């Protein structure tokens, strides 16, 4: 038992660690000439978007998800680096292994951010801020990368704090101070407030989270519906009981592509999806994962975006299953009648491939073939093996070669 005045855990037990301009900083490790310059990582095509922007570029108003054309206009001397996701994944794995040295309670949010439950580190550090600084220092020393840490009593507060701490900083929102901290923030900063909800809240004069907290809960539920209204009322009151949920390092894997010109030919779309299903299957194989759910994302020429998903009765990993399902999902969109700007396939409900697995009656042959292809790719790269229908135009009826 410790002394009375030393509680056994930290009140501010949740740390949100977010890597600063992660893709750019990883590139700078290999290319020191990029240091101090306005750099973005993103595709080179006319419709590419910024995936990650250096703080030098952000000073010109460039931010991630911005069309590359606009970014170049804002910052004419912008250096554009083509993304190397394999490298980012590899560095991400090293970042997460640093987290794992501090606590097993790590919940990955994406390749470059995670929640850590640091309550158990009370005996190893005097304050949560000390833990946060040690995490930042370890990442800096071992990997040469800057990161920011937010600390608080809930995930919501920790996440907002890491944002305020950027770049290369740390912010702790002390227990008891959450409400004051939250209420100054724009309501837009809350999880669950997208454009539509934001507009509905703005109509009734809600701008900050404080405005939201001042509304009677009933009124909010009436305006936004029970689930969302109740959720936001809780968040605005600082109530966020969600624990750090480890063991979900990879929640989803997806591939997508924005096309230089809108697609209106279904045959072409099917070929694109076949190629994406192939890439997705290769990544699942590489990570030794199976997917319970597959998602199709379609963005039309006017930027409206729809997603369709399907959950399998037993998880799958073959390109054939992913592709066949994606085609069925495509039929549930307007792709046949509206030009398409972006297509993407995602896999979620990921389970380890070596977990108990329901065997399939007819799979035998196909699984073996795809495993063989994946092994060739692992050794020789992705272009070593391609399906016949991807190497030429025409003649593709949307079926895999060899399908019945």
């Amino acid at each position: 038992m410790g002394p009375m005045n030393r509680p056994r855990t930290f009140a501010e037990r949740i740390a949100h660690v977010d890597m600063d301009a992660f893709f750019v900083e990883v590139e700078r490790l290999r290319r020191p000439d990029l240091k101090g310059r306005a750099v973005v990582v993103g595709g080179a095509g006319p419709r590419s978007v910024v995936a990650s922007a250096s703080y030098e570029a952000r000073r010109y108003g460039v931010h991630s998800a911005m069309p590359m054309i606009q970014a170049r206009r804002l910052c004419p001397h912008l250096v554009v680096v083509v993304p190397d996701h394999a490298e980012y994944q590899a560095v991400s794995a090293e970042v997460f292994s640093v987290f794992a040295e501090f606590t097993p309670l790590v919940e990955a949010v994406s390749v470059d951010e995670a929640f850590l439950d640091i309550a158990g580190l009370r005996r190893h550090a005097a304050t949560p801020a000390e833990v946060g600084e040690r995490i930042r220092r370890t990442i800096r020393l071992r990997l040469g990368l800057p990161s920011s840490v937010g600390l608080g009593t809930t995930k919501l507060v920790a996440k907002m704090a890491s944002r305020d701490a950027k770049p290369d900083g740390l912010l702790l929102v002390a227990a008891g101070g959450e409400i004051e901290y939250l209420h100054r923030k724009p309501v837009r900063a809350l999880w669950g407030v997208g454009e539509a909800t934001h507009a509905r809240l703005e109509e009734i004069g809600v701008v900050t989270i404080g405005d939201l907290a001042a509304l009677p809960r009933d009124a909010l539920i009436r305006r936004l519906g029970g689930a969302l209204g109740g959720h936001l009322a809780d968040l605005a009151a600082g109530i966020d009981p969600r624990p750090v949920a480890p063991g979900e390092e990879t929640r989803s894997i997806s591939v997508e592509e924005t096309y230089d010109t809108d697609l209106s030919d279904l045959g072409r779309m099917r070929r694109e999806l076949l190629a994406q299903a192939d890439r997705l299957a290769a990544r699942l194989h590489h990570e030794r994962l199976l997917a319970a759910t597959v998602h199709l994302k379609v963005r039309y020429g006017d930027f409206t975006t729809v997603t369709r998903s399907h959950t399998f009765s037993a998880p799958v990993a073959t390109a054939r299953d992913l592709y066949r399902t994606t085609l069925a999902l495509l039929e549930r969109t307007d792709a046949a009648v509206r030009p398409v700007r972006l297509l993407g396939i995602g896999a979620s409900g990921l389970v380890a491939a070596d977990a108990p697995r329901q065997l399939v009656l007819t799979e035998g042959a196909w699984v073996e073939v795809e495993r063989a292809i994946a092994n060739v790719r692992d050794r020789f790269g992705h272009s070593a093996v391609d399906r016949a229908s991807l190497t030429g135009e025409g003649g593709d009826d949307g079926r895999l070669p060899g399908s019945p």
Partner: protein
Amino acid sequence: MRIRAERDDLVDVLSRAGRAVGARAALPILQGLLIEVSGKTMRVTGTDLDVTVRTELEVEVLSGGTTVAPARLATEAVRKLPPGAVTFQAEAGEIEISGGGPVFRFREFSAADYPKLSEPVLKAAVAVDGAAFADAIGQVSVAASTDDARPVLTGVFFEAEGGKLRMVSTDSYRLAVRDVPAVEASLSGLVPVRALKELTRTVSAGKLRVAVGDREAAFASDRGVLTARLIEGSFPNYRSLIPASYPNRLRIARQALLEAIDRASLVAEDHIPIRITLQKGGIELSVTRQDVGGETEHVEAEYSGEEMTIAFNSKYLNDGVSAIDEDTIVLDVLDPLKPGVLRGGEGDDFLYLLMPVRL
């Protein structure tokens, strides 16, 4: 058009035909029931273009004619009238339903808009016992898929086999095969399982005639006719999936096995398999779920073969054992990665093959 009939008889023909009317019809007209009156008969048709149900009733015909009435409203209106005679008429764009005082009036759909449906073809139909056929459908339909991404697997494959009617279904994890005695079966086609599940609630009766044509399957009795558009595509070659011989055989009491599966299923949700160790004198059944716990038990049985542990999805196993209506169940296995086959200890008209879970 104007007829008079007993309320309950009218509800019966309207509601059974109405089962083919989809909740979200593709065309507004498909929310209607086609009602044709001639001679002494009222014919009612409901369809979603994939499944069509036709019923008929002898009524007191005051004047003949054809109309299309809103399916749900008209059926419920008749149902809510007081018991006794009901008058149903269509005139000048309006349907009037009355009896015992209350009068309902609904806008009539235009009969000219109703799709032209081809007449059921029953020439080559085979006769089957309705109750046995319903049981058989219950047995095979559990293995059919509900996954629209693979339409072929949402059907039950009908074919003639050795003077019997054979029905086969699979969702690619299990496969059910059932033979039904029939006279001169010669048919083949993939019938949507959704349509088959509607049979008992629509037209099934003591005697049923079954025909599977090029495009449609038809099921007819004195209660009416259900037709279903066949699913296109070729059904997997199921014969090649059924192993030719089994060196390892378990004979076990069905009830004891079902109870054991039920206990294990308490823990075995979410794709957690049930492990079965087959050994002389019985089986060790166990389930373990990380972070939760588990259950184990011994069930006495006869086993001849090599000792081994095989795992199955609890629901798939339960579906198969439940479907067999015998006191003793036989489970044949080859090895832990090959399909197991369940059948009755006596009968040879039903077989349920299921793929194991790899541990």
